[in-house]
């Protein structure tokens, strides 16, 4: 496959692994947080950790859009489907996430609610056109990558005068979340894993550019490498991080320059800005309330805002007892530190959000990483 195989080349991987091994300082630990679920997935799927020296460790961050959506918002989406009888259009990953009493959108669907899996906002718009007598709500989740398509859908619906289409907006912002993690009190505790550097988002950065990370890198004195989702991208970025850490630098560098520029996609940014505005506060699963970390629909487009069209009841739901998703999402615990991991919580019976999406760190650990632990145990 052109433009893909080049970034999965085994020979180059071996070479990069040798260079990284030669450049790491043996006495120190390199803790690298990959913010995005896409990176977590690539690391496990291709076995990137196997090719790293023992003192380079990945800490899996909160960048899985499904994982960070609080249960209360999911419960409200379920209200839309069940109480208000709308056609709820959702991305596939969201369908299996358990809300209260282990019920998910999938179980709501089985019980008769009209929940449909869509691949894009265009599908949702088409469903609205095809069902003029039904209210159709698009359950919008995700970081900056999925926000522009939601903006386009709203503008398109406005242009067509669609009266039965709204968006339940849960879009969140990456830089605010990274900042919040760095300010987490746990990270300041002596026994906490200190994070030495970040693998910066790839798709998100294609939209927002690399500039927004500059303030962060400077303030917290941590290097950030914007990198792609292919395994060689990840390895190259690790090498760049190791070099920065070794020389005490803390810059934003762009490994993914084939896609990301410093300013990002200005057209997409303008679209998002036209339709959405900053939410003062938004709850993240695992991070709690994070100021200025999410978007809401502007007044000009209020007719397309599901939160204004339907009288949604606020829901207060706690995570499953014992579930360590919050700590795992902040990178202060590993999936294997959770008592539920692999016992009652598996991809077939997920208790927390990190086990649901294949980008979630618990699911990735379960699907790809258990063998490694076993191997390490045997070797030890």
């Amino acid at each position, binding site marked *: *496959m052109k433009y*893909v195989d080049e970034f*999965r080349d*085994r020979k180059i*991987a*071996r070479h990069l*692994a040798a260079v990284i091994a030669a450049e790491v300082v043996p006495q120190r630990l390199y803790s690298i947080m990959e913010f995005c679920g896409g990176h977590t997935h690539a690391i*496990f*799927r*291709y*076995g*990137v*950790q*196997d*090719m790293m020296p023992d003192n380079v460790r990945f800490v899996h961050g909160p960048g899985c859009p499904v994982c960070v959506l609080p249960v209360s918002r999911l419960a409200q989406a379920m209200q839309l489907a069940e109480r208000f009888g709308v056609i709820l259009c959702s991305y596939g990953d969201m369908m*299996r996430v358990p809300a209260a009493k282990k019920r998910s959108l*999938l179980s709501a669907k089985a019980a008769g609610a009209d929940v449909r899996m*869509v*691949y894009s906002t265009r*599908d949702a718009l088409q469903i609205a056109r095809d069902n003029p007598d039904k209210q159709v709500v698009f359950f919008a989740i995700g970081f900056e990558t999925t926000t522009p398509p939601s903006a386009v859908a709203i503008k398109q619906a406005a242009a067509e005068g669609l009266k039965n289409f709204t968006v339940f907006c849960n879009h969140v912002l990456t830089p605010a979340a990274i900042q919040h993690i760095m300010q987490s009190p746990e990270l300041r505790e002596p026994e906490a894993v200190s994070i030495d550097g970040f693998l910066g988002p790839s798709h998100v950065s294609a939209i927002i550019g690399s500039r927004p990370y500059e303030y962060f890198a400077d303030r917290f004195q941590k290097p950030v490498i914007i990198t792609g989702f292919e*395994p060689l991208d990840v390895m190259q970025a690790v090498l760049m991080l190791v070099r920065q850490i070794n020389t005490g630098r803390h810059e934003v560098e762009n490994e993914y320059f084939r896609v990301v520029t410093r300013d990002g996609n200005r057209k997409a940014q303008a679209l998002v800005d036209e339709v959405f505005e900053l939410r003062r506060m938004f709850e993240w699963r695992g991070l709690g309330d994070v100021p200025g970390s999410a978007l809401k629909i502007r007044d000009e487009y209020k007719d397309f805002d599901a939160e204004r069209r339907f009288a949604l009841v606020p829901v207060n739901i706690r995570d499953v007892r014992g579930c360590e998703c919050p700590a795992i999402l902040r990178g202060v615990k590993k999936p294997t530190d959770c008592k539920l991991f692999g016992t009652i919580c*598996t*991809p*077939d019976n997920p208790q927390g959000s990190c086990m649901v999406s*294949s980008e979630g760190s618990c*699911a990735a650990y*379960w*699907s*790809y*990483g*258990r*063998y*490694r632990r*076993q191997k390490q145990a045997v070797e030890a």
Partner: protein
Amino acid sequence: MSTNKTKFPLSMNLRKGHVEMTHGAGGRAMAQLVDELFIAHFDNELLRQGNDQAVFASPGGRLVMSTDGHVVSPLFFPGGDIGSLSVHGTINDVAMSGAKPLYLCAGFILEEGFALSDLERIVISMAAASRKAGVPVVTGDTKVVERGKGDGVFITTTGIGVVPGGVRISGDRARPGDKILVNGFIGDHGVAILSKRENLGFESQISSDSAALHDLVAHMLASVDDIHTLRDPTRGGLAATLNEIAWQSGVGIDLCEDDIPLRPDVRAACELLGLDPLHVANEGKLLAICPAQSAPHLLAAMQAHELGKNAAIIGEVRQDENRFVTMQTGFGGSRIVDWIAGEQLPRIC
């Protein structure tokens, strides 16, 4: 006087007609559907006996029986349809014991309003598949459900076969050191179905690999006498089948990603849709496990058969009390190959 004419004075409108509740009500309409559609196309001696059951002499040896319900959507897809699939699926389930499939039984659940022309197309395809495989449909059943309570047509087929003397094939016989072989490209069926699903707007030239594998199996058994395990990796793909075998046999399995045959276009489609080809369904593939010393011979035998031209040795069985299925990735690392969680594609067979 012609008996046929008095039995069914009105002819069925196969071109424009639809399935009606009367087609399942036990009256003349049902008899006509059975006679003029099912018996006409499946025609064979046992079916012509006209009884509610097929009566045949018991063949010697161990008998094998298997059943498979088919609910695929869409009903027609590149490389096949629900009719041919329902023949191949059950023949393969019988053949994976090493058996020679003998007879099939077919149960149809039809939805009121289903076009008779589509039904005829399916029955013709089914009859052709059964004739080509040499495994006749010898008895069956038809039911009609009200509109909205089915999805056009569901077909359940049951097969009976006989295992040749000396053959012992089972999912619990994989042993450390054994090699694992597959008879060709994986993932074709799942991607072919996906390409036809209406809400995906995804065009591809990939055809389903749907095929009856019993002749290939007979050919393999004739060339190597110590095949331990055979299984067709249908729903859940290679990953599910290998995990099942690992659990049944109490062993681990290690695959080599570079050795698994995968068409570039199937790989590209999976890449685009975020699917793992190891989880994608096949309908004309089998996995064979045999001792290492027999593997080259078995591979050559498979490659000499039309349905095994692209066969390959893809991994081996190892000792592992955790029963992990792992894979050496093309990139140079290793990973676990797990069962798929939840559903990847609804109603693929």
